[in-house]
């Protein structure tokens, strides 16, 4: 391996240079697919190509292309690694290690939130603020928490957390909070709303997710890269998965940490300035984003399906279409996020992504979309479409094999019948497995030089083997689940864009897991019975898939357990460098040090609404942040009056969520409720409110009489 070249000047990106890279990359994929198809053809050809075989060949081309792409991404990443890094990288345009001093362009750090873990969000804000201060760079950055939360407790918690973090950091006027009354178009609408209101005040924005953290050093470096390269519209970082406790999360973050560098290096090799955008942990040049990247409607006849759900890929394509570069700063440290805690939560996220990616189909054929973006869109589509295609391939292949077997039994001629045992099949099977597993082996080799950071070479290899085994067993069930997602999307079943679960709790119970994953084992048993009767010779061929189907509920249950994950960490398995004290940045350590929030009155049913009415501070913060009421119609006034009386007289269960939110948006109603709650004699309070008053008394130092007195509630 060559010594890394850290010179701050990148290789000039001439047309020859870019074309050479793309030609070598796509040429390699093309040749690999061609050889594989030729081998398959040879397998089939002795008896002539039947219809079923033609179907298999077409499916095979589509599916093998994906396998070959993965292989060559890793291979080019490995070659780049061997030569000491890619000279064509965006971070090579600035000084490698020196702090990025000097005047900075105004940058907004925007964090769209939607019913998230509020403590975690503001802990990250605090960590990044401290990180920027440590870099002496806090003056150049403002923070915006952009809320679309529609649960009262989330909204009110966000407001009080914002106040407290501003107080603590003396950051009023630097950390801002915005709650949208009408949350149109989800996250992309939220960011667009920010751009319309305040975008012109800033040159760049760093878009984060609710579970993102970035170091102050990386934030300043990203700004320096943008300042240095005027034609760059967006730089995506490679966020590392961290802070996992469940076995599932720990396996994911370990796998991502070991395998991502090669795949990312291979990606950068071919796309260069045509990278993708993942929607978070990225810096965006605001002016072209405002001008060119507002999302168009899709040409769907159903108005409900015209909004683009997965906005990021499209925004990158629009940025490129406008002539701005999009880079992937994959070698930069200091970008983090958290993964889903278990398989069901991971699949819930996948379901949303599936719908979003399938929508991108429209852009695949749109004129003037950059080639690189088309390929990103294609890969995103195939990420989900490949599952039903694999399933179809398996079904057709099994029928074909059974057919041939039957014919071979009926035929008296030697040499006819099943020719699957031919040499070509052997080569094809070995080649497919090689293409699937060589990237993992290369990634392991590349990471072995830092094996100590992964728990040592033996534990690292063991972790890779275990992770590979578990994901190999998950894969057949994922195929079924993704197939269901694709089919339900095509049938027009809409997916609600819900909050992602990031909490680990106690994990799943076996019952929950069985209820979620009952279908794969049922299908597995059915197939075993069917094949046992009809085609027992196929059982061994399909055994890895059948084992996966049978074991999924148990594996999903086991891997959801935080205790098991912590135990694995104790054994040195699935360890990542970010968990070693010497390589944990301050920002991450700060977030990791967050105490688990205790159960408090926020967590009780209607806790948020109750706090807004009862607690003078929460009430004050909320009312002070509400806009002055505009003149209301008599009808609306009457409606609100009816709601507030109902709330106090009949308790919060008398109002639905929409009615609660209507009251929370009205300062006058809340002020009335606050006064009324505190002034009403106990005897006239609804039992639910009486319990709240009791809690307030418990917090005060007032001695209460045991009985008989009116003051006792």
């Amino acid at each position, binding site marked *: 391996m060559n010594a890394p070249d850290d010179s701050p000047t990148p290789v000039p990106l001439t047309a020859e240079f870019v074309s050479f890279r793309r030609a070598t990359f796509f040429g390699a994929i093309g040749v690999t697919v061609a050889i594989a198809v030729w081998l398959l053809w040879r397998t089939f050809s002795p008896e002539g190509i039947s219809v079923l075989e033609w179907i298999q060949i077409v499916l095979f081309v589509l599916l093998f292309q994906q396998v070959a792409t993965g292989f060559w991404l890793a291979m080019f990443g490995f070659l780049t690694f061997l030569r000491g890094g890619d000279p064509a990288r965006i971070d090579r345009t600035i000084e490698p290690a020196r702090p990025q001093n000097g005047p900075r362009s105004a940058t907004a750090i925007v964090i769209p939130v939607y019913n998230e873990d509020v403590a975690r969000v503001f802990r990250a804000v605090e960590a990044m603020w401290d990180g920027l201060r440590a870099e002496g760079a806090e003056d150049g950055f403002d923070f915006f928490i952009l809320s679309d939360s529609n649960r009262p407790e989330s909204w009110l918690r966000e407001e009080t957390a914002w106040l407290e973090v501003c107080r603590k950091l003396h950051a009023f006027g630097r950390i801002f909070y915005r709650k949208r009354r009408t949350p149109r178009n989800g996250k992309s609408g939220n960011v667009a709303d920010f751009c319309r209101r305040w975008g012109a005040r800033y040159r760049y924005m760093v878009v984060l997710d609710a579970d993102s953290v970035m170091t102050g050093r990386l934030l300043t470096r990203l700004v320096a890269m943008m300042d240095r390269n005027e034609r760059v519209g967006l730089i995506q970082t490679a966020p590392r998965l961290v802070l996992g406790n469940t076995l599932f999360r720990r396996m994911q973050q370990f796998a991502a940490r070991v395998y991502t560098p090669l795949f990312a290096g291979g990606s950068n090799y071919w796309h260069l300035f045509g990278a993708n955008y993942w929607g978070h942990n990225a810096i965006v040049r605001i002016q072209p984003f405002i001008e060119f990247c507002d999302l168009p409607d899709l040409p769907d006849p159903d108005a409900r399906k015209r909004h683009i759900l997965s906005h990021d890929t499209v925004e990158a394509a629009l940025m490129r279409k406008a002539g701005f570069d999009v880079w992937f700063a994959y070698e930069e440290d200091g970008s983090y996020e958290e993964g889903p805690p278990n398989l069901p939560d991971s699949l819930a996220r996948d379901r949303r992504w599936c719908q979003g990616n399938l929508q991108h189909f429209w852009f695949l054929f749109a004129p003037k979309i950059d080639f690189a973006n088309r390929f990103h869109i294609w890969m995103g589509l195939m990420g989900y479409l490949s599952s039903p295609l694999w399933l179809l391939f398996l079904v057709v292949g099994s029928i074909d094999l059974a057919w041939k077997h039957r014919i071979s039994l*009926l035929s008296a001629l030697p040499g006819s019948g099943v020719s699957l045992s031919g040499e070509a099949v052997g080569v094809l099977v070995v080649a497919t497995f090689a293409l699937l597993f060589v990237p993992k082996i290369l990634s392991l080799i590349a990471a072995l030089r830092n094996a100590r950071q992964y728990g040592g070479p033996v534990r690292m290899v063991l972790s890779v083997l275990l992770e590979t085994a578990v994901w190999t067993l998950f894969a057949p069930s994922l195929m079924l689940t993704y197939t269901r997602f694709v089919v339900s999307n095509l049938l027009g079943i809409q997916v609600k864009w819900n909050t992602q679960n990031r909490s680990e709790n106690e994990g799943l119970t076996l019952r929950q897991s069985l209820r979620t994953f009952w279908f794969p084992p049922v299908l597995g048993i059915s197939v075993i019975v069917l094949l046992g009767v009809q085609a027992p010779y196929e059982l061994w061929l399909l055994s890895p898939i059948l084992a996966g189907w049978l074991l999924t509920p148990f594996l999903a249950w086991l891997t959801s357990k935080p205790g098991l994950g912590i135990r694995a960490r104790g054994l040195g398995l699935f360890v990542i460098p970010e968990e070693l004290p010497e390589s944990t940045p301050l920002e991450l350590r700060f977030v990791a040090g967050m105490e688990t929030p205790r159960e408090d009155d926020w967590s009780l049913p209607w806790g948020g609404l109750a706090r807004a009415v009862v607690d003078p501070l929460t009430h004050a913060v909320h009312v002070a942040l509400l806009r002055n009421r505009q003149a209301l119609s008599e009808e609306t006034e009457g409606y609100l009056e009816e709601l507030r009386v109902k709330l106090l007289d009949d308790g919060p269960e008398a109002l639905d969520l929409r009615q609660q939110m209507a009251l929370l948006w009205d300062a006058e109603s809340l002020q009335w409720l606050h006064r009324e709650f505190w*002034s009403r004699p106990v005897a006239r309070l609804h039992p639910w409110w009486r319990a709240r008053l009791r809690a307030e008394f418990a917090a*005060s130092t007032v001695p209460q009489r045991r009985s008989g007195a009116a003051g006792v509630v």
Partner: protein
Amino acid sequence: MSTGNAQDAWDEALARLLAYLTAMDIAGLEHRMRLAVDLVTRARENYDPAVGPPVEAVMDLALKELTQWFAGVLPPSAKGRELATGLMSFRVVHAASRWPDAVLSGSPPEELRAALAAASWRTGPDLSISSMTPRSMNYGAMESLAQETWHQFAWAPILRAAAIWTAIFFATLYAWERIWPQ
């Protein structure tokens, strides 16, 4: 109202006021106690049973006095929300720890006045409006195809038909091979 019941009602009023002042977190315990006793005493002196029970009289007086006191130290922009704005500003300038005896104690200290006047807790900077509208997008041939075909479109019948045709296809294939095997 009997004497015992009346005393209970005033006890309730005092307890409620103390709980409220505690929840406000604006003063030390001793100051809160003094304030509470003072407010209850004054409410009792002017109490008119026809207006409402003691707890209402005491809390009305307390909230009125707090609102007036905050109105005296806040800029006019807080009008109509003096109590909420005052509490918020108090929190912002850490007034509870810096001036634990200030609330409702005659005129507020000049330092507190200045701190509250300077208190800033804006949730966003000044607006700087930009126009961000989607540019028209040409989706190419697929869009034309969709627009021409999809005036009345649903996936379900198409998928059902596809399933039936696939079944017919395989059935034909099977029959073909069975009837005319090679």
